[in-house]
């Protein structure tokens, strides 16, 4: 009994720095942000308590609705393509005998490039008059194409968003697949299981918990998408690629309406938490041990 008391003391003491740091840098700012959402404030000198006004405005704000829908749409693309492509690439790289190291490095490479640099890169690729894509089209004798339109802009920002983080999930999957004992595959081979069946009957069921983690990371991470959209389209044209991150930035820092920006931030946290919980519940499964 005495020993248990001592352990508790150690647990509290060792957890204290983490709790302290998380509180100071996360919970306190979030609480401050929540408080600011009840003010009409520029965050510095002008501040008036407005009660629920910012929330009422949020529900009537067409741009906020559009930004939320765009964020959810990006989330879907990210969940399907980022995780899906990463899984396919991991299975393919795991199956090759030579050059796996090269592919591992190549696929992971975009993860280490900053979002700002990737944004600039794609701005230059999509540029109408002097961009890479149009230069290629011109050299092949075709007309220039306007790549960033109201109809296409969201897809065009989804491409670099997906590409830039595929490598991250690829490495997770590759590690997970590498941990599956070879005996399983050898036994399956003796039973006459084919290549595709190996994937669906052995590999995927055994890494399902990793897939779950990647999906949650991808879905919640999609809410944080900001710099690529901001640099490539700044939410345009005509708000067609506006996401919650860019809209919140505009309100808080460009429009000096920190109060409403804080309200949008609260919405982002609520959506993020809800989706994380829902995804967790939907993908709940027994952990596989081997």
């Amino acid at each position, binding site marked *: 009994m005495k020993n248990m008391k001592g352990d508790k003391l150690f647990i509290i003491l060792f957890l204290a720095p983490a709790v*302290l740091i998380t509180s100071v840098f996360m919970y306190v700012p979030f609480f401050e942000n929540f408080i600011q959402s009840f003010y009409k404030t520029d965050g*510095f*000198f002008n501040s008036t308590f407005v009660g629920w006004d910012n929330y009422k405005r949020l529900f009537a704000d067409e741009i906020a609705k559009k930004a939320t829908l765009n964020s959810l749409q990006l989330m879907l693309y990210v969940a399907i393509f980022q995780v899906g492509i990463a899984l396919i690439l991991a299975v393919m790289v795991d199956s090759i005998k030579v050059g796996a190291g090269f592919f591992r490095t190549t696929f992971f490479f975009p993860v280490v490039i900053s979002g700002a640099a990737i944004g600039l890169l794609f701005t230059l690729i999509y540029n*109408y008059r002097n961009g890479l894509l149009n230069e290629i089209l011109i050299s092949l004798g075709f007309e220039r194409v306007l790549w960033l339109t109201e109809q296409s802009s969201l897809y065009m920002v989804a491409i670099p968003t997906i590409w830039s983080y595929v490598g991250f999930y690829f490495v997770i999957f590759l590690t997970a697949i590498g941990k599956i004992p070879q005996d399983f595959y050898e036994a399956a081979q003796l039973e006459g299981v084919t290549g595709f069946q190996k994937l669906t009957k052995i590999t995927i069921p055994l890494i399902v918990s990793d897939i779950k983690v990647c999906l949650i990371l991808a879905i919640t991470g999609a809410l944080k998408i900001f710099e690529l959209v901001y640099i*490539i389209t700044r939410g345009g*044209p*005509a*708000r067609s690629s506006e996401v919650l991150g860019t809209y919140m930035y505009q309100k808080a820092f*460009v429009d*000096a309406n920190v109060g409403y920006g804080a309200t949008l931030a609260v919405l982002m946290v609520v959506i993020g938490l809800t989706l994380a919980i829902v995804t967790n519940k939907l993908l709940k499964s027994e952990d596989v041990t081997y």
Partner: protein
Amino acid sequence: MKKKFRRLGSVALFMSILLVVMSACGAGDKSSSEAPKESANKSADESDKGNVDLKIVTTMAGTDPTGAVLEELVKEFEAANEGVKITNESQTADAGTIRTKVNTDFSSDNEPELMFYFNTVDAEGIIKEGKVIDLENAEGIDLSGYNSMLEQQRNADGKIYAAPQTGFYEALFVNESLFKEHGIELPTTWELYEKAIEEFAKTDIIPVAVSTEDSYYVVEHYILAAGGMEPYSSALSDKNAVWAEGLDLIGKHAKMGAFPKDAATIDLAMAASLFNQEQAAMLLEGSWAWGAIKEAGIDKNVTVLPMPNKNGGETGELVGGASQGWFISTKAFNDDNKRDATVKLFNFLTSEESIVRLAGATGQIPAKGELTDLEPNIAVGHKLLKDAPAIDAPINDRITPEAFTHMRTSVPEIVSGAKTGKQVLDEAAAME
């Protein structure tokens, strides 16, 4: 017993580490709450040794050519005033980061002694909080020799908080060579402006290089063109029909092929770059654009014209003024150890010689004295401003940032036909 003692020792050690970490965190609070006292003591020590540290924040940084001249002036001042050390924390005015920096500095008791900043809606909070001094009634401040730009800085409360440095104008930059090459008349009237759009739209040359998403100058000039200075100067809350007409004219001209195809996604710098690469014949910009035009080597081909007027009003009316000035922080002025050096530096930077040198870097119009030996095209701009029948500040200097952002970012929707000028105006007015 030994084990228990060792465990207690570990706990004590851990607690000490935690205490050190917490006291380090707490130090921030202590320093902020006792900041004035500490700073006063520090200043007193500095004063004993004859040392004074001054901080200045300006927008003369990045690609702004005045940044280099400011650095020279700072060095000259330091050399002439032994013991004065100046930290220059200037930041570029692009992307609005300077606004965040200035607001953060002033609200965290870390304000600069001198600041060259926007004397517009941006400075309202700082002025209302009494964070900067009334220059006219402050001892030692020399405001002599200023031209009419000083008066333009007068606040609604009747006081002058900012001393101007240069004036600016916004107008239509025209590549005369391209007009000549294509046999098109210069856009001196609204009809000729529309004719030029029509004619250039038939060629590879973009008629007017603008960004409709980042459409500061487009919005201002089209509203000015729609009805002249009187409606232009009205308040947003008036929801003047001329403003709506001006916004709709942008849509009309976009359909005529006036703007780049990707105008809704390029930014101001990219639009200006199209003009500087002679891929566009006209550019709506401010007088600071001369820097990049000269750098591109096309300045000999370029002249500047006032935006033509569509529905009456005198052509020659300009968007312009002097929206930036030098502020002195109240904190620095009330600090006995910093006051003299701060005032001295202010008088030095706002002396006629300094102002003319700073203005010379970009060819802007100085608030004191006159620039001489100007190149003809830059001189045209100076004449334009001198002869202007009416000048008023840009719209974004007069209305809330949120309302203006809504107006300018809605321009692509006006262009696509999703919204009318009136709709956008009503929505923007509701945000004020």
